[in-house]
């Protein structure tokens, strides 16, 4: 396997931004069409919960059900894409060394964190205090004028929650590994919101979310033979709708056509 920091894989002239997120930290950024965000699970035990919004019209956002229905899948990996509620592709998984990213099990909140790990207050722990995913989403969304109404079913990168024949959920230990990464190529200008916080089904007994790396690089929008586009007819239509919207947006901005 190629190292996630291999210079042959990520030429420095393509890298736009690098950042390490501490355990417990939230993050948001505006991402341009064509850019690629790599999320690296340094320790192999991370849960990176994520939500995605159309940058210009954030009422359009990642939609779990439409993503799963279009691709007849309950999880994400290379070749699959994240749909908005408007039939468009927000971003595509163009690379993945983990293999399974969860879409159905949601994220923790203050109550689930307190029940499992205790209060973990700032007064005592300072910046190692116990932050949780839902509050992190609320805070980070608040910076963009969004709030609780905008928190929908999220993606959990590097997490696998298995479903058995009768629908029971079970935490799948060892889903990720140290250095595993996923590459997200953005197909529209997108607001991404991430939180690096423990998954409530993770049996780890102590509050110790590990750091993750974020590496943003330049990229190109997908061509006609792009594997995510070509993976199934639903995605071909999803990309066509996305590209029509991109042309519409360019026309409004005074660009071509």
């Amino acid at each position, binding site marked *: 396997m190629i190292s996630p920091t291999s210079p042959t894989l990520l030429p420095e002239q393509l890298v736009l931004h690098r950042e390490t997120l501490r355990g417990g930290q939230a993050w948001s950024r505006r991402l341009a069409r064509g850019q690629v965000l790599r999320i690296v699970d340094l320790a192999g035990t991370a849960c990176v919960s994520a939500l995605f919004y159309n940058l210009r019209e954030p*009422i359009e956002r990642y*939609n*779990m*059900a*439409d993503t*799963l*229905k*279009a691709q*007849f*899948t*309950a*999880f994400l990996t290379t070749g699959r894409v994240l*749909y908005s*509620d*408007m*039939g*468009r592709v927000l971003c595509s998984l163009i690379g993945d060394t983990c293999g*399974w990213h969860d879409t*159905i*099990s*949601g*994220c923790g*909140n203050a*109550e*689930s964190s307190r029940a499992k790990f205790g209060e973990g207050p700032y007064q005592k722990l300072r910046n190692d205090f116990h932050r949780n995913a839902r509050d992190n989403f609320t805070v980070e969304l608040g910076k963009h004028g969004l*709030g*609780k*109404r*905008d*928190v*929908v*079913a*999220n993606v959990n990168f590097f997490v696998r*929650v*298995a*479903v*058995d*024949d*009768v*629908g*029971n*959920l079970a935490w799948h230990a060892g889903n990720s590994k140290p250095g595993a990464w996923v590459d997200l190529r953005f197909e529209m200008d997108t607001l991404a919101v991430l939180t690096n916080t423990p998954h*409530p*089904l993770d049996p780890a007994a102590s509050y110790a979310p590990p750091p993750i790396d974020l590496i943003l690089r330049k990229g190109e929008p997908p061509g006609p033979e792009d594997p995510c586009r070509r993976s199934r007819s*639903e995605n071909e*239509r*999803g990309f*066509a*709708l996305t590209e029509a919207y991109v042309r519409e947006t360019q026309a409004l901005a005074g660009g071509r056509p």
Partner: protein
Amino acid sequence: MKSSLRESSLSPKDACFDEMVPSGRGFTHELSPGQILRIVDLEGNQAVDTLFYNPRDLDERYSATDTIRTQGNIYLTTGSRLLSSEGRTMLSIVADTCGRHDTIGGACSAESNQVRYALDKKYMHNCRDSFLLALARYGRGMSKRDLSSNINFFMNVPVTPAGALSFEDGVSGPGRYVELRAEMDTLVLISNCPQLNNPCNAYNPTPIRLLVWNGN
């Protein structure tokens, strides 16, 4: 979780509300704590797309992911507690003669129909349009921003251990019903699904009956 079929002892003649909702129509209704809502699948294998809100604080709403993670199962049936985004129990399923209801299939929309079926399906009626019209008529400023992952009563969307998702023939049948007891003030939002592209309802959307009883 075992499939837990359970019949109700409530009689329709005692109901305080009794209304038919044809396919393709939206519906809103407020429940008080203790009231019981029965949704009847009159002809079988209809999909009843449903969302719940706290009418005193509309930011608090049914959360699919919190509900399934907390109960440890992706399907709903008797005994399931429907949790809000604030972690509170909004409703409990107290009777169910179907046995399995979907939590992850979501609602159809004009745009998702284009992706799933064909670009020229955009004109077809869909659940999101019914949701949006019903919310506008409800008149409290709710919009698409308030639509999150809904329940599909009577719909069967199994997930395999390998992570595949499919839309199977329903496990419901004519006259089967589910009953929910409101545990707090609850706004019910329903779209009786008009989908004509999916074999889950035999390409034949049908009416439902909604009844409400006052609690004891």
